[in-house]
């Protein structure tokens, strides 16, 4: 059999050592009623070439970024990934190790995660980062749960911006649905696509727990965090920012600099392939004073018995394997290898490279947006709103436009109608460094008809 090395002679010798006649006897204590019906009716195993053929056949039925022009964003982004990233995370010393419970033989993973935590803190301007959670959406939900642990019981109103990623809003709602003390409310967006600060201010009171906004938000609009933060601070609510495109933070003043209490997001953009939206990872940061309420793993520096620097999982008394029903979160296995990919990515690009990449995104997105309006005849949805690499345009016939583009192997964007009935003609586009000038010109030509 594949992957089981036991020859008949091996089996015989092992059974003899155990004192049994057959492998079946190992199951003698399992009720016959269960054993009789246990056979798995699946086809016989395939040879490696046959497996490859089947998988290649399935893969060929998908539109890939290598064959198509993608102008798709909305939480998952098509970015350049240096070859070195996959080379490093493919090393089996990283990929086939377990969660680093034995620090003496896990210093590789532990040090890399310590570096990851540092990089994420630097990028977000926050004081503490954990070692990562499942994705941006569950990070947002965990952030709300964390706020619930910090804020007094009288504060249980959660205000979520309608301009936050709709799937994230939905995951937050799922996580909160069984906690009867929490009340989830939506704050509308204003004419320019940013969270309506006036509405927010009028809704904040001494029962407000936290406010959650996208930065940039789902429409690609860069929220002005200053008034949002000020309103939260006045009311005693916590400000939680959610960033689905962390590359933007190489240019934008980060959440920490605006005074966010908790800043989370999706890390896919930084060195993780799109892979239908997973696996990537969620990053999770907060101010230092909240560290004992943070969910997930934390890696800390220490010394060994000979005084050498080393790293360990720390503050484990927050976690499920120690605290059980009183843990800060139920999270156990997370997304370490993806966080490692981001660590390599950020290390390779570095201070100047990450900024350069962000500038290229900003430049190409603005160039494309301008042309689609001027030459393509589309209308801006949120005119004058500052954006990074995503923007919303309007067209009378979104479906027709998407169809015409798809015929030319262009995925032109994401229709907003499915989540925003109030934006029936809105199309969310994303332009990155992977969209060459010719691609953008081709898109503009087809849109212009």
């Amino acid at each position, binding site marked *: 059999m594949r*992957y089981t090395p036991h020859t008949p002679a091996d089996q015989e010798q*092992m059974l003899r050592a*155990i004192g049994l006649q057959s492998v079946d006897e*190992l199951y003698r204590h399992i009720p016959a009623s269960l054993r009789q*019906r246990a*056979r*798995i009716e699946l086809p016989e*195993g*395939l040879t*490696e070439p046959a*497996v*490859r053929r*089947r*998988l*290649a*056949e*399935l893969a060929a039925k*998908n539109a890939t970024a*290598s064959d198509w022009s993608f102008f798709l964003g909305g939480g998952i982004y098509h970015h350049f990934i240096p070859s*070195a990233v996959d080379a*490093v995370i*493919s*090393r*089996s*010393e*990283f*990929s*086939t190790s377990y969660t680093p419970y034995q*620090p003496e*033989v*896990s210093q590789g993973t532990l*040090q890399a995660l*310590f570096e990851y935590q540092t990089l994420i803190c*630097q990028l977000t301007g926050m004081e503490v*980062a954990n070692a*990562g959670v*499942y994705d*941006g959406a*569950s990070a947002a939900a965990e952030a709300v749960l964390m706020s619930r642990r910090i804020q007094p019981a009288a504060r249980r109103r959660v205000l979520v911006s309608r301009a936050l990623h709709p799937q994230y809003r939905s995951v937050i709602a799922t996580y909160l*649905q*069984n906690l*009867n003390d929490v009340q989830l409310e939506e704050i509308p967006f204003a004419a320019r696509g940013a969270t309506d600060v006036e509405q927010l201010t009028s809704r904040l009171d001494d029962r407000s727990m936290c406010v959650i906004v996208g930065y940039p938000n789902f429409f690609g609009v860069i929220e002005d965090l200053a008034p949002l933060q000020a309103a939260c601070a006045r009311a005693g609510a916590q400000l939680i920012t959610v960033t689905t495109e962390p590359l933007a933070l190489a240019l*934008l003043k980060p959440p920490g600099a605006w005074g966010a209490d908790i800043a989370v997001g*999706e890390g896919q953009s930084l060195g993780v392939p*799109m*892979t*239908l939206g997973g*696996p990537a990872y969620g990053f999770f940061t907060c101010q230092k004073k909240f560290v004992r309420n943070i969910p997930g793993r934390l890696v800390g520096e*220490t010394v060994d018995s000979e005084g050498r620097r080393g790293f360990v999982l720390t503050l484990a008394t927050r976690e*499920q*394997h120690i605290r059980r*029903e009183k843990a800060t979160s*139920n999270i156990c296995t997370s*997304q370490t290898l*993806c966080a490692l990919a981001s660590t390599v990515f950020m290390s390779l690009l*570095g201070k*100047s*490279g*990450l900024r350069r990449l962000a500038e290229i995104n*900003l430049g190409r997105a603005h160039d494309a947006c301008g042309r689609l309006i001027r030459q393509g005849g589309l209308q801006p949805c949120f005119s004058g709103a500052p954006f990074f690499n995503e923007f919303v345009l309007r067209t009378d016939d979104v479906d027709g436009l998407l169809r015409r583009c798809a015929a030319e192997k262009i995925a032109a964007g994401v229709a907003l109608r499915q989540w925003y009935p109030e934006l029936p003609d809105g199309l969310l586009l994303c332009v990155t460094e992977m969209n060459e000038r010719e691609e953008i010109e081709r898109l503009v030509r087809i849109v212009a008809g």
Partner: protein
Amino acid sequence: MSESSPDDRKALTAAPRLIFESGSPGRSGFCWPLEEGSAQGSIPKAWLRDDIAGFPELGELEAVRHFTRLSQRNFAIESQFYPLGSCTMKYNPKINEVVARLPGFAQIHPLAAAEQLQGALELLYELERMLVEISGMEHVSLQPSAGAQGELTGLMLIRAYLTAQGDPRKKIIVPDTAHGTNPASSTLCGYDVVQISSNARGVIDAAAVAKVMNADVAALMVTNPNTLGLFETNIEEIARAVHAQGGLVYLDGANLNALMGVAKPGHMGVDVLHMNLHKTFSTPHGGGGPGAGPVAVKERLRAYLPVPRIVKQGDRFELLDDCPGSIGRVRSFFGNFGVLVRAYTYMLTLGGDGLEEASRMALLNANYIRKKLEKSYQIAYDEPCMHECIFTDKVQHKFGVSTLDIAKRLLDYGFHPPTIYFPLVVSGALMIEPTETETPETLDAFVEAMLAIAREAKEQPELVKTAPHSTPVRRLDEARAARKPVLKWEPGERRDG
């Protein structure tokens, strides 16, 4: 720069600096020309940041060498035997890695139209069917990212179902042998936890369940085989006791590797089950993820499964987002798709018979180790074990040697230790799960090391108590790390480790 000494220049195991302590201002592994027409003017100046202080500045080789050297400071399945109990550290086949990287899987976008994702949806649809067949359940959601998220999802399904019956109820029964995630997930789902004890034989009695089972109890969460490596032989009767009071049975499938083709959870009276694809179905653990924790249910819970659901219409696959009754989404997009591709590939490779053979050999390996060690280490429960066996440090304790010492000494012999001090009901537990992919020769070598340590514990206990002696670092001061947490590097800190 520090002064060179032969030790830190030559030793393969010398500590690399932190990435922030290497490099030089102006260096980068990324070299793209700046493009004309900067759009920075479109963003208010006060919203822009300066350079990211402290961010790395290295060339590509410098960075690659840094991470390569870090990797060499890890134990991993491909270099060491890794018998970590309840973690199923089996071989992670290379073909899985190759196919998961095909552009048709790695370079696809979740918000593309369904007609542009037909291959991906077909794979997910087929994988759901395969898991149904293996588990004996009726429907599957592939969305949960890992086992713990699967548990939370499963409990939410139970809560939604009971709410629809008129009362979500208040409590979840969890045995004392359960993983910590079980009670933690219960709390997150708004339930109180009632703990019950396993009996003298390490399993649950139906009578113990019946005693605490009443109209306040929403569900029993049980792991089978349990974390003692024992099959819950009363599972059918237990399920009847729970159902008789209107409760549901949740099975934690962390140990499904013992059961494939042997017994199906769906036949045990189980209503909800989660599976860990990064354990049973061979996807790499990645030093702590990504995993995948699909949830399987019986028909009466189908309506509550997370959205989107994948449906087949003729020969097309579509996404159903509008499902009244659904608990909603538990994460973005489709779950950890790349992990699901690997698990699917594994199942295609092994087929039904191969999966059964995997479970059989997992049992054979565990029972072999159990037999070989039972004279030198105290066995926790003298019952036939499934895919893992549990010993204690009782014999060694009288020489002052503990489970932790034994685990650390194993590192010197080049083996990853078993899971230790878990389950909590066994004092000084050593939980050994060899998995089916190991040869008897490897098992023999591990047994030899364990026997040698048992001798050392008696004859030179100090040697064991001060282990490990040969690892890149020795025992680390965990108390210090927790007392004054240093969770990131700060500029100006020392440049050498």
